[in-house]
């Protein structure tokens, strides 16, 4: 089993830095995702790992071996392209067996291995069809089988589900996860869809503008974002800007347009720092003057959206900033008329104060 290390990897295209100082270790057998908006450099990292681009600085090691100067055809990696890049002029089994044909296996061995893989991806007996005769989800699985046929240590997937419709995408998520667990191959998955990254991955790296913002488990990413970008890119968050006026016991007190608010101080900000407070919509409650919460902000109701099992309350704070609350659909909402005053409360442990940097 081979782990993957990125050691201070930087890649520049002319003046443009696509990836800056990436340091990372991906463990063998892990399902690892790179999550970020388009243009953040995640595909570039994938292409560097697979060997289509060489880093300008730093090193990439697979299983401890430096990959510098080793071409994509000699690396223990297999890449699944965004558009799959299946060979349209070959049959399904010829596609799957391509890597074996390249390695000089006999035709019967190629066919036998292709049939095994077709069974594994639940397409038995479809080997003689042309690729064009398959549905989107089936092509997806053929692409995976083609990559797995060469028994790579690492499978690299470049947004392979983006072309599928929602239902199929959800089905394929479970399928991918199952294939990964069955084969034990390290999966490195590129996506801009946080749902995919959070549901499938063991760990996620969130990227922005060529830099790794945070590398952690999905729940860690969601609950304890380390930067304003992560806080706002992954899931929804209510931002409140201000500056720190007091720190103690891992908490910070911030002066904001909505009054003094308390939050966790995970990043050890000090008094006087400009900061952003983030609180998730589902961690807020409509306070109704009962008190009990450490933070209470006064807002006016803008509108209510019924989503079904929960209701989105959109409120406007004193500073004009919008505040969203996800309320479970078992509460009295009669008093939440347009422009009604509403108190929103949240505990200090649910909120986090982060440096005031770029948001998503």
């Amino acid at each position, binding site marked *: 089993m081979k782990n993957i290390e990125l050691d201070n990897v930087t890649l520049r295209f002319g003046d443009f830095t696509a990836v800056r100082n990436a340091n990372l270790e991906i463990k063998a057998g892990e399902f690892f995702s790179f999550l970020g908006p388009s243009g953040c450099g995640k595909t570039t990292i994938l292409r560097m790992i697979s060997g289509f681009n060489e880093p300008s600085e730093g090193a990439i090691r697979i299983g401890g071996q430096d990959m510098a100067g080793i071409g994509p055809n000699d690396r223990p990696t297999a*890449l699944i392209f965004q558009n799959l890049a299946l060979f349209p002029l070959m049959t399904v089994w010829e596609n799957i067996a391509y890597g074996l044909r*390249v390695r000089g296996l006999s035709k019967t061995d190629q066919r036998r291995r292709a049939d095994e893989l077709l069974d594994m991806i639940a397409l038995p007996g479809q080997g003689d069809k042309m690729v064009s005769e398959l549905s989107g989800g089936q092509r997806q699985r053929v692409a995976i089988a083609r990559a797995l046929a060469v028994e790579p240590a690492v499978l690299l997937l470049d947004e392979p589900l983006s072309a599928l419709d929602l239902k199929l995408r959800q089905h394929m998520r479970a399928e991918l996860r199952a294939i990964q667990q069955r084969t034990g191959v390290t999966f490195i998955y590129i996506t801009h869809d946080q749902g995919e990254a959070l549901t499938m991955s063991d760990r996620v790296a969130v990227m922005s503008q060529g830099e790794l913002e945070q590398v952690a488990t999905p729940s860690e990413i969601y609950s304890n974002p380390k930067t304003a970008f992560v806080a706002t890119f992954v899931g929804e968050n209510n931002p409140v800007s201000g500056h720190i006026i007091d720190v103690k016991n891992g908490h910070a007190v911030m002066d904001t347009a909505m009054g003094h608010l308390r939050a966790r101080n995970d990043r050890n900000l000090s008094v006087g720092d400009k900061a952003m407070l983030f609180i998730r919509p589902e961690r807020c409650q409509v306070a109704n003057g009962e008190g009990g919460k450490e933070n209470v902000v006064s807002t006016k109701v803008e509108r209510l959206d019924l989503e079904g099992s929960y209701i989105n309350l959109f409120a406007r704070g004193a500073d004009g900033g919008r505040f969203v609350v996800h309320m479970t659909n078992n509460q009295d909402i009669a008093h939440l008329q347009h422009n009604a005053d509403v108190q929103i409360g949240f505990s200090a442990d649910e909120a986090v104060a982060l440096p005031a940097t770029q948001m998503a």
Partner: protein
Amino acid sequence: MEAISSFRNRYGAILTTYVFVGCATWLIGMIVAPQLLMVQKSLMYSDPAAAAAVSQTKASTDRLFVEKGRAEREVRKVEADIQAGGAAEADQSGGGVFNPFGSSGNQNAGASVEELEARRDELIARLGQIDDEIAANDSALVDAEKAAQPRLGLQNYFELFSNDANRPIFFKTIWSSILVTLIALIVCYPVAFYLAVSASKETTALLMLGLIVPYWVNEILRTFSWLMLLSSNGLINQALIGIGLADTPIDWRSGNSAVLIGMVYAYILFMVFPIYNTVETLDKNQIEAARDLGAPRWMIHWTVVIPHAKPGIAVGCIMTFMLAAGSYAVPVMLGSTTSKWFTEIIYDQFYEGGNWGLGSAYAFVLLITCILFIMMMMRLFRVNLQDIAK
């Protein structure tokens, strides 16, 4: 009719008229009529021996008329001499005697009246003979012309295969055209691939310009420039001798090499562009996918790029072959007497030999061979007309 009216509904009357008149003109005027005319000519065979007899008879009649005119003139002169009582002694001696018929070339100078009378009778007898011979010639001419009349038959086609001078040139032309096509393919595929896949936009534009610019110059002049490059003291020979690769100038033009080089050069664009166009439509991810799966470069070409580019390769090969087989200027200019092209033979039949039937038959055989070649290429590359139209 239905097709026409639906076309008209979609595109309007003017465009419909234009398209259909244009198509009809093209099909009938440019393809069907000339071909039919040529086939008809090629099927008219005239016996060369009969034709020779006709011209021989005509020439002999001409000669007889000339002789007849001369004899009649002499008879008139001799009779004048007889009336004058004997021919003048000689021009130079008889200065004072008036002799209207006297001339320095008088054969009967100094002859007596008896002698003159004998000469006159002899000439009159000959004139009678000449008239008989002319009459005989005239009747023979009618028969000969009847025999030389062009008749329907396939002899013109058989002629090519029994003609030991032209048959080898025909096969050599086909074989050399295949060779030109192969060389052009080998030269052009890497260029087309590089242009379509590897080169940056600016490089592509620059290289395209480089490929097209020579075509702004007339084909004759381009070929002429090769003549200068390949001549025995031309640039190539000087360079080869200069760097020591050759001791004496290589005679490129005695064999086929100059013609082959000139043709590959002349038709390179027709090979590059179809291949470039198909390779361009290849999803570049497929190349990377093959590479990622471990394929060495030659195998990526063999298994991914070439199968995709097959229609383009087929079109390029067909065009290059057709142009090479039908080329006239290049072999005329760069070839020598030992490297004649079949088109030159056809030209000679029309403009030197005056045998249009034979020329038409030769041209038609070349056309059929080229069509067979196209069909073979399409079968070989397993492409159909729709692929090519793409």
